[in-house]
């Protein structure tokens, strides 16, 4: 046989994918580190190794304050979100609260409302001068001046972050609460424990790792949050690391090396947080046994409190989902924000103006293209990587692959963007400033999500079906394509939809890497806000939100993908 016949092309392809993975994840990190220890921007021949950037990061009071503020914000938001998440999880999964199924679905929706939309909505509702709620309250209670509500405060920022992040706490905790074998509680009751003691002595200790993992993920996401903190922070005199990084790159005088140093510090914070989060998440399921009979869950009867509890849940849904949507949709049809809404104030002018700007049409096109490609390529890439990890048991170093695939979760969007910025300024690959660098950013950023879904799906169906196909004559990749992928169609499609929406709404990477040709809708909205043209921003938000809803609906109705846990 000639050498060409000997080469197994499939293995070559898979090896190439692994190399690509290393490049995609490690190169930006490498360049970020390089930039953080370098004294000059990319391409400047005068640069040299230096500690100055880190000295500035830890030495100036501004940046110290930013670091501390990020940690403070993380802690406060966690302190509010985790108990709330636990409360909701317990109510929905373990009590006889009405409409449990509906509530379970609704609790997850805020995850898909981009923080950008949330900020816009509450700026419209609660800015001290012209906020809609303020206008109403002032009219009702008859006082003058500003307020009473002010979103441009630390409290406002915490409020928005908590609203956005409660679903993370809810999901982590509900997953465990909802699967604890009921015989643990029954055994406790038989031993003489009342309801409260069962909760205290049996349920909470078993759920504790899940609670801790929820706390860690919320902390990390709050500390690295970009949009809310950048839109509201300056006016609230509350500056965090992501904001500092952003202005150091975007505004004059730019200090990209300092930004890179801050990016590294942020990365360390989130990296450590995610490391412990993953360890806790594994612990969380160790205590849960899935018995063959299928767990019968103990549902607590909370009597009359059911309706009060339901009201509480509905208030959250109102604040986190309904109010923002109404505010944005309403705002998009108004000339300007006022509490005195009369028919003549409604207009389609905002939408007209939006479509008149060719920039905006470009933005819509780019967003759709990037989301489509990002999701399709991303899911395929993730599936092939998961396939390598799960099915090639004899290859050494699979653990490293697995780790690399999940690593992007610990990389904040800004840090990743900075790394990519430097990578493609240096590398002779001409994608900087184009739509393609954004695609690379999105695929890298959301790799972990796609990988996790592919990995757990592959784990569930086991290799026997593919092995049967191979015995029948199919190659490994063919077996994957003909047998496994059709079976996994539903989870893979739901992964596709998740990545599509995350990509469409993405801000923190895009804001650093975009150019006038690669404008996306979220950046366009951002720019409109910066220019003060808020009502057109609302119109764009409605379109963006609408695209997300349409995609989810198509997935649900046409493909029968049930999207929520």
């Amino acid at each position, binding site marked *: 046989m000639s050498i060409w016949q000997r080469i197994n092309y499939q293995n070559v392809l898979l090896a190439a994918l692994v190399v690509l993975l290393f490049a995609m994840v490690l190169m930006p990190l490498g360049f970020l580190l390089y930039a953080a220890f370098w004294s000059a921007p990319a391409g400047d021949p005068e640069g040299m190794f230096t500690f100055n950037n880190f000295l500035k990061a830890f030495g100036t009071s501004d940046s110290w304050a930013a670091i501390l503020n990020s940690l403070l914000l993380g802690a406060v938001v966690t302190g509010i979100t985790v108990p709330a998440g636990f409360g909701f999880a317990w109510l929905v999964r373990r009590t006889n609260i009405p409409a449990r199924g509906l509530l379970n679905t609704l609790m997850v929706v805020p995850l898909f409302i981009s923080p950008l939309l949330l900020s816009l909505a509450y700026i419209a509702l609660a800015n001290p001068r012209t906020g809609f709620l303020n206008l109403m309250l002032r009219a009702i209670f008859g006082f003058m001046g500003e307020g009473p509500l002010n979103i441009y405060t630390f409290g406002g920022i915490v409020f928005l972050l908590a609203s956005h992040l409660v679903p993370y706490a809810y999901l982590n905790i509900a997953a465990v609460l909802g699967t604890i*074998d009921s*015989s*643990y509680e*029954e*055994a*406790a*009751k*038989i*031993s*003489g*424990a*009342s309801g409260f*003691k069962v909760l205290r*002595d*049996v349920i909470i*200790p*078993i759920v504790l790792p899940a609670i801790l993992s929820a706390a860690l993920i919320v902390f990390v996401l709050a500390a690295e949050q970009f949009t809310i903190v950048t839109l509201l922070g300056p006016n609230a005199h509350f500056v965090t690391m992501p904001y500092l990084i952003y202005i150091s790159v975007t505004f004059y005088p730019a200090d990209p090396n300092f930004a890179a140093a801050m990016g590294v510090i942020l990365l360390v914070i989130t990296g450590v947080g995610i490391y412990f989060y993953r360890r806790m998440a594994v612990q969380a399921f*160790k*205590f849960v*046994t899935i*018995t063959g*009979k299928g767990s019968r869950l103990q549902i607590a009867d909370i009597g009359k409190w059911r309706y009060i509890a339901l009201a509480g849940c509905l208030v959250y849904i109102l604040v986190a989902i309904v109010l923002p949507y109404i505010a944005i949709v309403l705002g998009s049809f108004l000339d300007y924000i006022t509490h005195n809404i009369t028919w003549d104030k409604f207009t389609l002018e905002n939408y007209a103006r939006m479509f008149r700007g060719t920039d905006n049409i470009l933005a819509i096109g780019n967003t759709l293209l990037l989301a489509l490609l990002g999701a399709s390529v991303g899911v395929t890439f993730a599936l092939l990587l998961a396939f390598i990890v799960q099915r090639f048991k004899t290859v050494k170093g699979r653990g490293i692959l697995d780790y690399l695939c999940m690593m992007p979760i610990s990389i904040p969007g800004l840090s990743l963007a900075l790394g990519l910025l430097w990578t493609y300024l240096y590398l002779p690959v001409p994608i900087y400033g184009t739509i393609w660098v954004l695609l690379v950013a999105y695929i890298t950023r959301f790799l972990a999500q796609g990988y996790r879904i592919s990995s757990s799906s592959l784990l569930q169906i086991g290799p026997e079906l593919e092995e049967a196909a191979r015995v029948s004559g199919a190659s490994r990749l063919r077996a994957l394509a003909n047998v496994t992928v059709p079976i996994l169609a539903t989870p893979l499609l739901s992964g596709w939809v998740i990545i599509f929406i995350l990509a469409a709404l993405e801000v923190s990477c895009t804001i650093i890497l975009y150019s006038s040709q690669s404008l996306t809708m979220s950046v366009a909205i951002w720019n409109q806000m910066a220019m003060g043209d808020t009502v057109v921003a609302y119109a764009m938000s409605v379109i963006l939100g609408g695209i997300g809803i349409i995609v989810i609906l198509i997935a649900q109705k046409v493909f029968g993908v049930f999207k929520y846990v």
Partner: protein
Amino acid sequence: MSRIEIRGLRKFFPGNVAAIDGIDLIAQTGEIVSLLGPSGCGKTTTLRCIAGLETPSAGEIFFDDQLVSSSKYCVPSEKRNIGMVFQSYALWPHKTVFRNVSYPLELKGLKEDGIQKRVMEVLEHLNLAPLRDRFPAQLSGGQQQRVALARSLAPEPAVLLFDEPLSNLDAKLRERLREELRSILKEVGITSIYVTHDQAEAMAISDQIALMNEGRIVQKGEPEDLYERPVNKFVADFVGKGNFLTGKVLDSSGSASRIALEGLGEILCSQQVPPGGNLLVLLRPEYVDIHPGFALEDAKENRWQGRIVRRTYGGNYTNYVVEAGGVTVQVQTVKSGFEKEEQVTLSVDPAKVICIPTH
């Protein structure tokens, strides 16, 4: 210790599924009663009603003449002073063996040294003392099972309930543990209700068996009653293997009945059965004896010619399938020397012929 009485117990689930459809049962103080039956027969639901984990739709349950369960009144599980061993053992994973066993005593409000004393007493009785500081995940299946038992015995309950406690263990361990279990329960003298689908287990452990099917008790009695004197085919088939042949009673005198059996001709049975009726005759494979060739000596009763159709060697016994007179008869015997296609003679002691009325 309590006497348990169940009267007219019924339990419906949503969709009008009657899981239990009229159960009457008495367990005397210190008795071990098994609820035996196929999946879905209602035995676990009955157990859970006794435990107070389910409320009956109708009927009552009494512990020593105290009403504990009815459709309107249900004493909560934590107040019933019972112990329960679950199929999955339900050992709390975050507590050590010691803390698992001491928990019911802590809830009762016992003092420190009282708890220490009692827990060690129970652990030592079950040979678990060296494991006191281990966590459940570090124990074998058999050890976990004993810890679950220790936890249920520690507070000295009036009643002990078992929900298929041995079904997660391998066969040899199961056999050994059920003997140990019975001797411990008899030693403590505690009233026990034991749910299982394994008839060998039920017969080894129980004083009384209540065989259930589709929510009702089909037959209750001592293990021997169910095995030697089943009331119908379901009972006969569930508690053991059998050759079921239809027959018609020819005549019946004081001590024996003569029955015309399909295929085999006539058979003599030591039971007295009303003549003229049709019935089902049960020959247990282990009671059918097998002899070589045409052994027609003595020309006694209950002998038939046959040919071996299948032979399955099983170590301590051999199973033969014999074709005789057009019917197939299963034989279980220690005689392993017969070959396939060999001509043999079958015989049965009239005292071991079981007659089951057909309604």
